[in-house]
């Protein structure tokens, strides 16, 4: 989790979060609590999950009880309270993808990354996930990495996808 840990320690990031919260408060003056969801999205998008420290910070800044912030963050499946990788690999296991061999693709990802569905790799780069239908059945089997669709994916394509994102991480993420 080195990547997330590093950002968490940067005061600039917290300043930037405060600015974002201020902006959202202005957008939701009638009902400040409504700023909570966009702020949680912002944190989720940065870290790939919502750290406890950020929950406390948001509660203070918005004047929403900490327990309520956690209640909201834990309710929506989009938000995660446990660390997630920089890249979430969602292999579609919907009917169409499944009959076109999604299980083999999933197995290949899992064995290559050493992480079962729901788990995160030790380097904090990848989280494996099962997805239900992604709405691209015509291109099955479909794999979604963060917001990017890869389709169709055969088991032999997996190592290329993995090395592509590993290389990308080297560029984007401070070592």
């Amino acid at each position, binding site marked *: 989790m080195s990547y997330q840990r590093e950002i968490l320690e940067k005061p600039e990031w917290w300043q930037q979060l405060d600015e974002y919260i201020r902006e959202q408060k202005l957008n939701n003056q009638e009902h400040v609590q409504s700023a909570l969801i966009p702020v949680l999205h912002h944190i989720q998008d940065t870290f790939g999950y919502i750290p406890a420290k950020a929950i406390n910070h948001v*509660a203070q800044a918005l*004047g929403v*009880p*900490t*327990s309520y912030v956690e209640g909201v963050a834990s309710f929506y499946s989009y938000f995660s309270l446990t660390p997630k990788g920089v890249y979430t690999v969602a292999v579609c296991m919907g009917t169409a993808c499944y009959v076109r061999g999604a299980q083999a693709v999933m197995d290949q990802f899992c064995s290559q990354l050493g992480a079962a569905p729901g788990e995160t790799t030790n380097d904090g780069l990848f989280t494996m996930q099962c997805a239900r239908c992604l709405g691209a059945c015509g291109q099955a089997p479909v794999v979604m990495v963060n917001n990017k669709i890869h389709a169709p994916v055969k088991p032999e394509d997996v190592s290329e996808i993995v090395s592509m994102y590993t290389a990308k991480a080297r560029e984007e993420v401070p070592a």
Partner: protein
Amino acid sequence: MAEKISLTIDNIPVTVEPGATIMEAAEKAGIRVPRLCYHPSLSIQGSCRVCIVEVEGMRNLVASCHYPAAEGMIVNTRTPEILRIRRDIVELLLDNHPMDCNTCERDGNCELQRLANSMGIRERLFEGERKEYEKDLSSPAVIRDPNKCILCGRCVRVCGEIQEVAALAQVNRGYKTVVMPAHDAPFMETVCVGCGQCINVCPTAAFLEKDATQAFLKAIEDPEMIVVSQMAPSVRAACGECFGLAPGYAWEGEAFAAMRRLGIDYVFDTQFGADLCIMEEGAEFVKKFKEGGPLPNITSCCPTWIKFAEQFHPDMIKYLSSAKSPMSMQGAIVKTYWAEKMGIDPSKIFSVAIMCCTCKKFEAQRPELGVNGLPATDAVLTTREFGWLINHFGIDFNHLKPEPPDNPLGSSTGAAAIFGTTGGVTEAALRSAYFMLFEEDLPDDGIDFLAVRGLEGVREAVVDFRGTPVRAAVASSLSNANTVMDKLRAGEKYDWIEIMGCPGGCIGGGGQPYAGSNNIPLDPALLEQRACALYNLDKGRTLRRSHQNPDIQKLYEEYLGEPLGHRAHELLHTFYYPRMPLGVRPQEAQEK
């Protein structure tokens, strides 16, 4: 004014104000729709679906607690189909609930049990997956057992809406939903103030007070220990309810008699401590009043209010009276003055306090309240635990003859009795402060300060002190405390503020008897009756001003010297500090 709405419920025509729910309309027609998550003092959640009814012409059954009544509506609350569906709903609530009723603390007092019984559930057709969570035993006041929780959400609402502590929330979703503090932190490390209102409103045993009966029984068994008791004013106004007696009476002598039968060696009274508290807090107020500040003087008897203030109103700590609570004063006097007088080693005294309050268990553990390295109070039993012990010992409470407490620490005036209800401390303090200022008692017809009585959340009164107005505010429940603190910050001038953490004051405490089968927890009518019992006690006493208590006068002569004197300061006063526990509830006011 909008027109009234007429509808028919179970063939009974009924007329209600616009905005009324079907449940409210049904109540007007004399029909009590079964309910679970609904509570009249809390917001509507509509999650349990027990209160479903049929509205003719509608496809689905509706939850009557939140569905508004409409003109011409025809409602059926008890068709065979509804009764069957309602039974299934309760059965599904039971299906992942532990089947340990016989060993559960709330056996016989459980709302879920009563509900299941009235639904006619005689076997369990559904066997669902069981939850397995660890109990949270970290707090000395309140313990949490998520395995017993049925997610009605009453605790979350009472904590957020009535107390504005918001320690609890429903976290996760679906089957995995748990009621917990932020980050699932141990209660002790959260903003929980230990008021115990979650216990009062919980239909099951998901929240309970931390047990002190075992420690008490051990002390009773120990031949070397001298067990000394005290009882809060509000306990006598409620303990009889544990035995099915109707509220409105103060079981004072009966409770003292029961304590002797439990094997307690010396039966004293927290009301003595209350009189003592008035001497110190009254003197403190008079001193501030004469010297011009810092005013207001804010009361410090209530431990939930103290923890709440330390967390959410640290800027107000400077106004808090430094006087300890009656319980802790009494405990300190027992282990010093009384122990010396009796020639007893204080370390051989087991001081037990019977309280209406769960947070007193927390207060008893505050290290700064100890005396000479010993805790001032060794164990705190709630009214419920006291009731349980009486049953455990096979004492027939209903036929006990009243007995007086032991002296000298058992005597009290009428002023001390009303400590148990909101506004009582203010009234008691005004009576004695008047005397301290003018060396003359208030005339008897001026002794009742009716303006500070009642159950409204915030009450204000201006009392004339021979030409000088004393502005007093009285609040009960912590949301009302927030209201008063915000007004104070906004520049409102007060000389005296009394805050009690529970609705109605200590009579509505988190350790009071559970609501009976026909009652609802926190019922204002019940609180009124308990308050009435205390006001009657006050009226019946010859001495109604704390400074008139002869044993208090003797205590100052023999031991303490003057109120606020050196020794009094050492034994009867304390200090507070800001707390920032995990997940502190932020205050908009603090940002300004």
